[in-house]
C-alpha cells in the first residue's frame, strides 16, 4: 500500500511507531505530487527544501508531529508566497505566519505547499484562479468545486494528508463534496482569522480538508481557540474533538429543512442524500422536519454582505506598498486604476463593483442595511430549528461536479452552487460535508456530499454524527483512479 494513501491518523501511527520518518513521508508525498499533480494542478507552489529541513527536526510525539499539511494560497505562511491565486499579489511573500499556521507548527505539523483557489476565494469552481484551473481527481474534465478547489483536490488525490481551506459561503464544504473528502467549516469565532487574507470578514472561517472525520477532529484540535490578534475569535473552551467520536448517536435528532428539499436539486443528489438520511435513521437518529423560512433570501443577502465587505477588504491592493503595480501611469489615480484593472480578474472586479454599489450613499439602506436585517432573520431561523434538533442534515451542493467552462459565462447560475452552504456562514454556525455516494456520468463516478449543520461551537456533536455515518458506510474509502 502506498504511504500517501493513508489517512492523517494512520500516517501519524506509522510515524510514532518509527516505521517511517517524517522525511520519508514528505518524500513519498512529493513523489506522488510530481506524478499526479500535472493532471490535477492542485498546488500553485511548494518549497521542498524548507519542508525537508523541518521534517528532519520534527517531533513525532506532538499531535501532528512530522505531518505535512497543504495550505490554501489565502493563508499567510512566513517566507512563502501568498498570492490568493491573483495576479495582483504575484511575487508577494508573507512576512509572518497566520495564527493557524503558528498553531499547526506548535502541533508539530509542517506547512507544505500552497493550494490553488478561486482568486481571493471568490468562486465555486477554482476556475477563477489567475494561474490555472484545478481539475477534479474523479474526472479531470470537471471542476473540483471552489473556492478551496486546490485543497479539496490534493486531499482527494492523496497529494496531501490534510489541507487548510477557507469557507466564506461554502468554499470548504462544496469542494469537499465534489471531490469526495471531509470538509469542515467551524463556527464563526472558533478559529482565528489572523493571517487569512480577508474576503468577507464577517463570514470567513478557516477549516480543514481531510480523508476522514477523525482527521478533521485532530486538525480542529490543533487550530481552534481564542486569539488575541483576532477580536472576532471567541473565548470558548476547546474540547478534545476526537474524544467523543464513536459514541452512540441513538436518540439524536436530525432536522431536514423542508425548504432545502424542493426541486432544483439534481435527482441523483436528492436520492443519495435521502438514502443517507434513512441510513441515519437506521443508526438510531430521529429525523424531524424543520423549517428555515428565510432560505430563499440567503443567496441575495450573502452577495450583498460579502461583496460590501470585500470591496473594502480588497481596497488595499493598490500597487503602492506591495504586489503588482502597473507601469506607465501618468498620475496617482491612473496608477490605482491600471494596477487594479490589470491585477484583478473578472469575478473579483464584478464583486468589488457590486460591493461598492451596495454601500454607496443613497443605496446603503436599501441594500446593505436591509441585508443585515434579513441576516438576523436567517440566524433566527437556525436558532429556532436548533431548539428542536441537534443538527441539520441536507445536501452540500445541489449537483455533482460540472464540466470546466460550463458555467463561466453565467455567474448567476454559478452563485447558486452555494445555495445550501451560504446560510451557515450568514448564521455563524458550523458545518461539515462528508461523502455519501456517487453519481455516474460519462463512465466516471462523481462524489456526492452530505452536509451536517450544527449550533455555534457544537463541532464535537457534529463530528460525532459525521463519524457515525462515515464509519458505517464505504464512501470515504473509495479513491479516484489516477
Amino acid at each position, binding site marked *: 500500500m502506498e504511504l500517501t494513501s493513508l489517512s492523517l491518523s494512520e500516517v501519524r501511527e506509522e510515524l510514532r511507531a518509527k516505521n517511517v520518518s517524517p522525511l520519508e513521508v514528505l518524500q513519498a508525498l512529493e513523489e506522488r505530487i510530481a506524478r499526479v499533480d500535472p493532471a490535477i494542478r492542485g498546488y500553485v507552489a511548494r518549497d521542498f527544501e524548507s519542508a525537508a529541513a523541518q521534517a528532519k527536526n520534527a517531533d513525532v510525539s506532538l499531535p501532528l508531529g512530522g505531518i505535512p499539511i497543504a495550505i490554501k494560497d489565502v*493563508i*499567510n505562511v512566513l517566507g512563502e508566497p*501568498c498570492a*490568493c491565486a491573483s495576479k495582483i*499579489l504575484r511575487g*508577494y511573500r*508573507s*512576512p*509572518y505566519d*497566520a495564527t493557524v499556521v503558528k498553531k499547526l507548527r506548535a502541533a508539530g505539523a509542517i506547512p507544505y505547499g500552497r493550494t490553488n483557489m478561486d482568486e481571493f476565494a471568490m468562486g465555486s469552481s477554482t476556475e477563477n484562479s489567475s494561474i490555472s484551473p484545478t481539475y477534479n481527481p474523479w474526472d479531470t474534465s470537471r471542476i473540483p468545486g471552489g473556492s478551496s478547489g486546490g485543497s479539496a483536490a490534493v486531499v482527494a488525490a492523496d497529494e496531501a494528508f490534510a489541507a487548510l481551506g477557507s469557507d466564506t459561503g461554502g468554499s470548504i464544504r462544496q469542494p469537499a463534496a465534489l471531490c469526495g473528502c471531509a470538509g469542515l467549516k467551524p463556527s464563526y469565532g472558533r478559529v482565528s*482569522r*489572523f*493571517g*487569512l*487574507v*480577508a474576503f*468577507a*470578514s*464577517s463570514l470567513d472561517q478557516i477549516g480543514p480538508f481531510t480523508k476522514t472525520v477523525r482527521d478533521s477532529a485532530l486538525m480542529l484540535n490543533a487550530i481552534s481557540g481564542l486569539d*488575541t*490578534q*483576532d*477580536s*472576532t475569535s471567541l473565548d470558548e473552551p476547546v474540547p478534545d474533538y476526537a474524544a467523543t467520536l464513536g459514541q452512540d448517536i441513538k436518540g439524536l435528532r436530525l432536522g431536514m429543512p423542508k425548504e432545502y428539499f424542493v426541486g432544483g436539486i439534481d435527482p441523483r443528489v436528492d436520492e443519495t442524500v435521502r438514502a443517507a438520511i434513512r441510513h441515519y435513521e437506521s443508526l438510531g437518529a430521529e429525523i424531524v422536519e424543520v423549517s428555515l423560512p428565510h432560505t430563499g433570501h440567503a443567496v441575495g443577502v450573502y452577495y450583498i454582505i460579502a461583496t*460590501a*465587505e470585500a*470591496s*473594502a477588504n480588497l*481596497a*488595499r*491592493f*493598490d500597487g*503602492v*506598498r*506591495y504586489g503588482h503595480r502597473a507601469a506607465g501611469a501618468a498620475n*496617482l489615480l491612473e496608477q*490605482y486604476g491600471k494596477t487594479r484593472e490589470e491585477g484583478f480578474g473578472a469575478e473579483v472586479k464584478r464583486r468589488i463593483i457590486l460591493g*461598492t454599489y451596495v*454601500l*454607496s*450613499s443613497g443605496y*446603503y439602506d436599501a441594500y*446593505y442595511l436591509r441585508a443585515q436585517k434579513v441576516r438576523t432573520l436567517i440566524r433566527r431561523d437556525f436558532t429556532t430549528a436548533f431548539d428542536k434538533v441537534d443538527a441539520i442534515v441536507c445536501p452540500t451542493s445541489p449537483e455533482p461536479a460540472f464540466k470546466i467552462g460550463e458555467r463561466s459565462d453565467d455567474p448567476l447560475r454559478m452563485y447558486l452552487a452555494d445555495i445550501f452552504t451560504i446560510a451557515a456562514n450568514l448564521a455563524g454556525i458550523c458545518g461539515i460535508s462528508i461523502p455519501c455516494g456517487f453519481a455516474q456520468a460519462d463512465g466516471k463516478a462523481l462524489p456526492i456530499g452530505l452536509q451536517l449543520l450544527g449550533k455555534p461551537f457544537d463541532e464535537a456533536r457534529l463530528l460525532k454524527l459525521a463519524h457515525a455515518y462515515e464509519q458505517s458506510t464505504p464512501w470515504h474509502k473509495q479513491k479516484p483512479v489516477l
Partner: protein
Amino acid sequence: MRYLPTVGLEVHVQLKTRSKMFCACPVEFGAEPNAHTCPVCLGLPGALPVMNLEALRMTALSGLLLGCDIAPVCKFDRKNYFYPDMPKNYQISQYDMPLCAGGGVPLHDMAYPKDAQKNITHPDKVVRLVRIHLEEDVAKSFHFETSTGIDFNRAGTPLMEIVSEPEIDSPEEAFAYLTALKQILIHGGVSDADMEKGQLRCDCNVSVRPEGQKEFGAKIEIKNMNSISGVRRALAYEIARQIDACERGEALRQETRRWDDASGQTWLMRTKEYAHDYRYFPDPDLLPVKTDVLVGAVRGRLPELPAARRARYVADYGVSPYDAGVLANDIGLSSYFEAASKDSAKPKSVANWVLNDLLSALGASSGAIEACPVSPESLGKLVAVIERGEISGKQGKEVFAEMFATGKPPQTIIAEKGMKQESDTGAIEALCDQVIEANPKVVADYRAGKVSSINFLKGQVMKLSQGKANPGMVGEVLARKLADL
C-alpha cells in the same frame, strides 16, 4: 451692511498611548521612517486590528472632562477612500455612534490672545461640542524631487476628532477655544497637543452672512494651519475675503481652501463637486464593546481642570485671579506650585516667588519648568525661611540666585554664607549671661566635668530668643563664657 462670521472647528488630537490604536507598535514622534510598523499598521493582507482599550479610556476621559455623554457601546466603522498614506485604503473611524456626544469647551479670559483679553465679547462663553470620536491616524508622505516616500510610523496612532458646533464668532474666539481645549487635554494627560508636532491639527469651517439673515452662508473649509495663532490669522483673512466677496455681490460656494502661512492667504483646493462618498459601514473585524466598566474606572480618576484649580488658588490662597490663571493654565507650572506650596503656611508667597523670580530666571535661561534647577521642595523651604524671618527678603533673593545657579538647597547656601539672622553677638551674649545667672546648678555641673549640661543652657537661650538665635553662635558664646567664669 454688517456681516456675521460663523466658525466651527474640527480638531484632531493624537492620544499619547504607548501603543497604536489597533496594533502593538509604539507611538513615537521622530523615529526612523517606518521603524514602528507591523503587518497591521502597514495593512498587509491577512492582518487584523485589535482595539487599544487605553485609547478608549483616554477618549472617554476627554469626554467626561468636556461634559459629554459617553456612548454605552463603542463601535467602529470603515471610512473608504483611496490615498497612498492610507495603508488599507479605508480608515477605521466612528461614523454614526461617536464615543462622546454633546459637552462643551468653556472659554476663559486668559485663553484669548493677549491683545484681545481686554475686549471679550462673550465672557465665560462655552462653545458646545457636537461629538468626539476615535479613529486611526494615517501615514505621512514626503515629497522628493522625483518620488514620494511614505512613513508609516504615524499610521495607526489613536486620533480623537473633536467637532464643535458652528458657534464661534471670531478668530479670537477660535484662538481661545483651541487654547482652552488644549489646556484641558494636557491636564487630562491624554495628549501633549503640540500643534507643531502634529499632535493637534485643526480644520476650520467658516461662513459669513448679513446681519439679520438666519441661514448660514456657504461653508468654506480651511486646512493646513500649523499653530493656534495661524488659525486666528487664517480665519481673519478668510472672513475678510468672504465679506469682501459678498459686498462685491459674488456668490460663495462650498469649497475647501488651503492656508498659506508665508503669504498669509488661503487658496482654493477643491470645490464641492469632488465631495467623497465614504461608503461607511460597521467594521466587521471589530465587535462593538460595552463602555460602562471602562467609563466607571475613568470617572474615578478625573483630574482637576485648570478652571477649578484657578478658582481654588483664588479662594483658598488669596492669589489674584490673573496670577492664579497663569499658574493653573500651565500644567508644568501648576504642578510645580502644588509641590512647592504643599507644606507652606503662606501659599500666596510661594505663588509670588514662582511667578516672579522663578519665571524670570527660567525666562533668562530659556529653561523649561520641568528641568528647573531649583526643586519645588527647595523653593518651598526658602519661602518658609524668609517667612519665619530667619533671613531677610533681600537675602532670600541672593540665596535664590545661588540656588538657581548651583541647584543647592537653601539651608546649605544660608549656612555657607553665614546668613542666619541674629548674628548680633551683643544680643546673644546678653541672653547667655541671663541664662548662666539663672542656672547656677547646671553651670556647676558643667564646670565639674558634665560637658553635656551645656545643651540644656543652649536650649534655654534658644527659647529666650524665640528660636531666632543662631544655634552655632549660641554654643560658641556659652562655651567661651563658661570657660571664662
